[in-house]
C-alpha cells in the first residue's frame, strides 16, 4: 500500500515537473538556452569587472567562475568538505586506531604495480591542478586525484597507514590560507577575495587542491581504521 502511494506521488511529481516546464514560455527548451542575456554573458566575455586585464582571465571559463567571480561559493564548498571531514573524524575517530584488514594476499606484481599506479595518479593530480586555468579539470578533481593515489596505497597493503596528521595540518593551513587570501584582498583593495594579481588565482587553486586532498584522505583513513582491541 505504502509503495503504491509512493509510486503515485513520485509519478505525479515527475509529470508535474515535465508538463509545467514544457508548457512554460519562460523555461527554454532543451538545447536552446538564452544565457547570453543573463549573467553568464559577463563571465564569458569577462566584461564583469570592467577594467580587467587579460592576464587575470583564465582560458577555462569554469575555473574563472569558480575561483574568481564566484569565489565565495568555492570558499563555502571548501568549508563543507572541511566540516564533513572533521565530522567523519568526530563520528568514526578512535583513540588508538588500527587498520581494517582487507585480506588481500599481496604479491610482488600487485605491490610494484600499485606503487607505479600511485606515482602516475599523483603526478596526474598535480598536473591537473597546475593546468586548471588552461585545460579541463581544476583543483577539485586534481585534489581528489591526489587523494585517490593515496587510496591505492591503502588498498594494496593491509598494514599501510599514511601520516594523517600531516594531511590534517595541510588541510587546516590551506583552508585558513584561502580565507587569508580573501582578507589580503580586503586589506589592499577593500574587497574580499579581490583578484588583483595573477598570483592570487594560482594560490587559491593550489590551496583548494591541498584542502580537498587533505579532507578526502582524512575521510578515507577514518573509514579504514577501527579501535584496537
Amino acid at each position, binding site marked *: 500500500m505504502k509503495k503504491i502511494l509512493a509510486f503515485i506521488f513520485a509519478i505525479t511529481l515527475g509529470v508535474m515537473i515535465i508538463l509545467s516546464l514544457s508548457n512554460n514560455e519562460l523555461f527554454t527548451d532543451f538545447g536552446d538556452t538564452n544565457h547570453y542575456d543573463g549573467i553568464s554573458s559577463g563571465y564569458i566575455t569577462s566584461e564583469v569587472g570592467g577594467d580587467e586585464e587579460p592576464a587575470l582571465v583564465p582560458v577555462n571559463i569554469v575555473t574563472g567562475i569558480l575561483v574568481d567571480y564566484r569565489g565565495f561559493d568555492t*570558499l563555502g564548498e571548501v568549508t563543507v568538505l*572541511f566540516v*564533513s571531514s572533521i*565530522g567523519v573524524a568526530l563520528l568514526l575517530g578512535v583513540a588508538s586506531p588500527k587498520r581494517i584488514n582487507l585480506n588481500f594476499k599481496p604479491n610482488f606484481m600487485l605491490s610494484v604495480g600499485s606503487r607505479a599506479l600511485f606515482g602516475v595518479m599523483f603526478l596526474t593530480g598535480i598536473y591537473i591542478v597546475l593546468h586548471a586555468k588552461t585545460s579541463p579539470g581544476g583543483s577539485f578533481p586534481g585534489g581528489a586525484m591526489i587523494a585517490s593515489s593515496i587510496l591505492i596505497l591503502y588498498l594494496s597493503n593491509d598494514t599501510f597507514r599514511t601520516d594523517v596528521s600531516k594531511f590534517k595540518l595541510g588541510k587546516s593551513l590551506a583552508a*585558513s590560507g584561502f580565507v587569508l587570501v580573501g582578507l589580503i584582498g580586503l586589506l589592499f583593495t577593500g*574587497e574580499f577575495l579581490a583578484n588583483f594579481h595573477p598570483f592570487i588565482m594560482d594560490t587559491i587553486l593550489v590551496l583548494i587542491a591541498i584542502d580537498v586532498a587533505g579532507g578526502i584522505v582524512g575521510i578515507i583513513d577514518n573509514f579504514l581504521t577501527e579501535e584496537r582491541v
Partner: protein
Amino acid sequence: MSIVLLIAVPLFFAFLGIILKKAAPYFLLLVSFFNVLALGFISQGAIVIGGYSSFYGIQLVLNSYSLIGLYVVNTLFFVIVAINCFKHKKLSPILLISLAGLNGLLLTNDLFNLFVFMEIAGISAYLITTTTKDPKSTFNYLVLGTIGSSFYLLGLIILYAMFGVLNIRILGNIIEGVVTNKAAVALPFLFIFIGLGVETKLLPFNSWVKGILGKSNALTGPLVGAVYASAFAFVFGNLLRYLFVFSESLLLIVSILLVATILIGEAMAYASTKVREILLFSSIAQAGVAVLVFALGYYTWGTILIALNGFSKLILYLVVNIAVDQVKSDELSALKGLFVNNKLIGAGFSVATLSILGLPIFAGFIVKMNILVAMANTPKFFFVGVILLASLIEGIYFIKLLINFWFEQDQAPRVKYSYVVIYVTLVIALLITVFGVYLEPLNSIHSTLNLVKGVVMHG
C-alpha cells in the same frame, strides 16, 4: 568595517582550530563574542565579493531587518556557547563553522550562495546533534535536510534557466516587472518553499524535529530550537519579501500548509505529556505563524515576532533541557515542582512563556496585537481566527505546564542551575517585560523600519 568579516573571521578560526586543539574552545568563545561586538561597528549597505557589480558577483546585503536577525542569532549563539563550550570541546570548530553559516544565510543576496550556506549550516547542525548519541534521529535529519536542499537547488536552477540571474533582489524585480502570468513561476517557488520548509519545520516536512528536539540536550535544544529556527525564519522572510510572487493557486497551497502546520502543531503539543515534546510541537506551530505573517506581508512585525520568539525559546529550551539532563526523564509528572527550589529560574521561564502566549505587560502581547490588528484591517478574518484559536490552545497547555512546575510541594526535583543560566534567564525576562510595559522602543523600531521600507538597499 566590512560585513564579510562576520563570516570570514569565524571560518578562519575554525580552520585553525583543528590544529590548535587546546585553543579551539577559547577561539569559539572569543570569536562569537567578537561577532556580537562587531555588529555595533558595522555599516549598513551592500557589498559584492571580489568587487564586481551586483549583477554578476555575489552580493551581501545588510539592512535593518538583517541587522535585527544578526543581533538575535549572534547574541543567542554567544549565550549558548558561553554556557556549553567547555562541555563539548571537540565541537568547537564545527560550532564556529555553523556560526559562519548562519551569518552567511542572513547576509547573502544570492540564490546559489544561499544554498551553499544552507548546506554549511545544515551539515554542522547534523554534526552538533550527534552529541545526543542518537544516530538514528541525526540520520533522519540528514536525509530530510538533504532532500530539502535538493528541492531548493532544483527550484533555484529553474529560476536561473528562466531569467539568467541569481541575485535575489534583481530577480524579484524582474519577476515583479516582466512576468505577466504569475502561474509560470509557481513551480520553482513551490520547490524553494518546500526546501526551506524542511528547515523551518513546516508541516509535511518536519518529521525530523521529533527525533532531534525530542531528545535534545542543553546544547542542541537551544541551538536548533532557538538559533537555527530564528535564522531560517529570517531567511524565509527575506525570500518572501524580495523574491516570492504568489499566484492564486500557490498562495492557496501555501496557506493550507501553514494553517495545518499551526493547528496540528498546537494540537500535538496539547496532547503530549513530555515536556520537550510540548516545546517542540509548540515551536512548530510558532514557525508556522511566523511564516504566515511574512507570507501575508507584515514584514516588520514578523521580524520582531521571530526575534522575540528566539529569545523566549532560548530560555524555555535551556531551562527544560538542563532539568531533563539532571532528572533523566522528560515526563511532565517527573518534573512537577521544578520551580519550587528555583524561584528565579521559574520567574524567567514564566515571563518567557506568557510572552509567547501574548499576555499583556509582556512584549509578545504588543507584537501579537499589532499583527492581529493589521490582519483585521486588511481584512483577513480567517487568519485572525486561526491565530486566536492557536493562542487559545497554546494558553491551555502552557498554563497547565506552569501550574505543574510551580505548585507541587511533595517531591520537587532538585535541579541545579549555574549562575550564568540564571543571569541570562533573568536578563532576557527583564527585557521582555520592559519592552512590554514601555512601548516606545518597539514603536520607534517600527517607524524606523517603515522609513527604510521601500528604500532599495542594493546598488
